[in-house]
């Protein structure tokens, strides 16, 4: 059993209610932070913990907090990004649904550290019932004096507001989220200025992921140094992984980032192996936008070392032979899955979710989808593959926000690693409509780099 910090109490009956959460030791970290610690020492603990943003980019949270501008007389805001819309990622939903008070406690501590009197949870519209759970939890917390005016007699006021999004993926991008929260169209802003300087209502703002903010609670409880001892290297603490796809036990797992990918997929504690006795074909290890990895590069890096479930190891080899930790949406594809179809599904998603603000993403995502549609329907040409490659190359890095990159990477990685499957689709137009390329890509047994 690995270390559990966030989901330790998730299975306690009634943990969703304040009374049970408090009885199980909840809000003790908030008490400690507000009564015994200073703002600086909280930020210092978070910095020491090495906690990295759990939303996808993996930016050190303590560093992000220290960037916030503190002009006199201007309110600051903390915004919790609960617009979890990445296909394959559902860890925040689990956390908010079962442990709403853990998030609220984390928000309270973080708000105190950042000086935010009005803190917002921007939750995606599809999580309607979760938003209700959060609102109930906030009400309970307010009744018990953990939110509102003069919390614990410290003179600190904090209110948490739940704001429901309208179901746009782009609103998970922090500046688009801020725009949406302000009541505007959810278009990402052009940076700089960064939110830490001019964010919500042009005030200094920090936007953090749900899991990042929840992880502040164990950090305060055990101390930043202790937290940093869990995990390996710069991947400290625990990470929630939402595993899905063709596995025996899909679900949300908390791992301490020292486990190997192979163990994670095949051990009974976690994914429990590939469903129906099939073979592993490929994996998208960090949510739909990160590059897909073929089985041979998933379990071992190109250098032949074991790949582990942490930020560094998953990105080992760059995009040529590696991928990213991303937001922890672990999607397994078995031998029956078609890479072309999978890529088309992702391309369709990004086309649908592009905000349409900047031209490469607006036009390029639609173009890629149409070409993939054509290949998938057995009408493709070999030149289409090169065209796809060229389009993704011209989108990547040329857009305002990372959605352009997120749309380009899956296509790039699919072509990079599975070009033979695309070619097979194009050369066997009729056959590709009735059968699957399967594992022809690999030698039997699957070649793992030595």
């Amino acid at each position, binding site marked *: 059993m690995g270390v559990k910090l966030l989901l330790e109490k998730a299975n306690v009956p009634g943990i969703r209610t304040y009374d049970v959460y408090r009885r199980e030791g909840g809000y003790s970290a908030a008490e400690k932070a507000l009564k015994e610690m200073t703002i600086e020492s909280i930020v210092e603990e978070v910095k020491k913990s090495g906690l990295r943003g759990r939303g996808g980019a993996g930016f050190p949270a303590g560093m992000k907090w220290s960037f916030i501008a503190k002009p006199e007389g201007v309110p600051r805001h903390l915004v919790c990004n609960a617009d979890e819309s990445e296909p394959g990622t559902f860890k925040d939903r689990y956390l908010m649904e079962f442990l709403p008070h853990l998030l609220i406690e984390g928000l309270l501590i973080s708000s105190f550290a950042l000086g935010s009197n009005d803190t917002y949870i921007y939750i995606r519209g599809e999580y309607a019932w979760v938003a209700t759970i959060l609102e109930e939890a906030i009400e309970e917390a307010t009744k018990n004096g953990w939110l509102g005016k003069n919390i614990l007699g410290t003179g600190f006021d904090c209110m948490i507001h739940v704001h429901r999004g309208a179901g*746009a993926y*782009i609103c998970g991008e922090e500046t688009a989220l801020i725009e949406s929260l302000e009541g505007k*169209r959810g278009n990402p802003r*052009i940076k700089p200025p960064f939110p830490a300087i001019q964010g919500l209502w042009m005030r200094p703002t920090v936007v953090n992921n749900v899991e990042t903010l929840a992880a502040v609670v164990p950090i305060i409880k055990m101390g930043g140094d202790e937290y940093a001892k869990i995990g390996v290297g710069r991947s400290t603490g625990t990470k929630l992984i939402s595993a899905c796809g063709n596995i025996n036990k899909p679900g949300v797992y908390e791992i301490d980032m020292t486990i190997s990918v192979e163990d994670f997929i095949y051990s009974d504690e976690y994914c429990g192996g590939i469903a129906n006795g099939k073979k592993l074909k490929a994996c998208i290890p960090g949510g739909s936008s990160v590059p897909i990895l073929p089985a041979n590069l998933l379990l071992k890096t190109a250098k032949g070392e074991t790949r582990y479930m942490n930020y560094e190891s998953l990105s080992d080899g760059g995009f040529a032979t590696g991928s990213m930790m991303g937001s922890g949406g672990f999607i397994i594809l078995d031998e029956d899955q078609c890479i072309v179809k999978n890529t088309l599904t992702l391309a369709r998603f990004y*086309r*649908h*979710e*592009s*905000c*349409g*603000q*900047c*031209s*490469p993403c*607006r*036009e*390029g*995502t*639609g*173009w890629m989808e*149409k070409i993939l549609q054509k290949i998938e329907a057995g009408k493709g040409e070999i030149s289409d593959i090169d*065209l796809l490659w*060229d389009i993704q190359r*011209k989108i990547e*890095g*040329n*857009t*305002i926000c990372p959605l352009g990159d997120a749309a380009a990477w899956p296509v790039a990685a699919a072509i990079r690693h599975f070009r033979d499957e695309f070619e097979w689709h194009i050369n066997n137009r009729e056959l590709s409509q009735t059968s699957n390329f399967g594992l022809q890509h690999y030698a039997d047994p699957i070649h793992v780099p030595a």
Partner: protein
Amino acid sequence: MSEQTLFKVTVDNITIEVPAGTTILQAARQIGGTVAPPAMCYYSKLKGSGGKCRTCLVEVSKGSEKDPRPMPKLVASCRTTVMDGMEVKNITSEKVVDARAGIVEFLLLNHPLDCPICDQAGECHLQDLSFEHGKSSTRYEFQRRTFKKHDLGIHIQLHMTRCILCYRCVFTADQLTNKREHGILDRGDHAEIATHIEKSLDNEFIGNVIDVCPVGALTDKTFRFKNRVWFLKPMDAHRDCPSCSGRVTLWNRGDEVYRVTARKDEWGEIEDAPDGKPGWICNTCRFDKKQTTDWVIEGPREISRHSVIAQGHYAGNIGTTIPTETFAAINNGRTPHLLMDIHSESEVNQPNVHLGENEGPSNGATFNNNINNA
């Protein structure tokens, strides 16, 4: 005095000193010529515009004197401010040229290319852009997205199919009118400019959206299909207008005023009025004052844009040149007083009339007299 601080910036190996806070694009425009990156969405008179079309991407090969690291990605020059000692590569960077060709291809992907029937043709920024930075053909082989035409009131036609979603008209309405009544609906490649429920835009300054539109998506209904812009003679004119600066360009043919626009500079942007504010014009000036008698004509307007509209007009900074030999020199000393528009007067095609023998400027009456006298 921090505003007075001058920063040295080098664009395409040409160094210039600009005040701190200037964007790379503005610095490059001060140098001028091909050094200035193209801009489809940025409009210096509209706050908050820019950053969207990505045609102005440049490579920053040296961040600043203090931190000489190059920037990892191409940056939008319209929204990036210069640092002291910054070195920027525009057309000298292969990466930029390649990326820009890609952007042009993307912009043209869903553009109908109906230039032959488009009123903007000849003064269209997208035409210029694709001519200068694009490729001769597209690799797109699917159906383009189309929209129905919409009437935005009695004066403005919205042809959404041509739109490149630069958001300029949205900023214009935000900044010139009290209440913006149109905006972007939907998202991605099916996003559209709309009033949501068919509504007419009738703010007194809303006509300026026609001037800021870089393509033919918003056109002047009083001018639609009336004439091609390169057949018209632009004249600077003004009138005493109670609501705006009243400084305009008239687009004439003969004595007839075909359309009225604000005065535009070489970047296609509204010129500043003498008081230093942008010279936006009101709907009355633009749509209703279509008689030369309404205006005090100042003289011909120089069109310095390097597109087809500048051809055959008065010499500008770029493009056309004045011939060195004079008419008199090649015509045995005879000087014609031709100051007329041959297109509007069909009677002119009379070989018996010698224009050079006329006293004073010729006009339709000259010919009518000749016909009557004959």
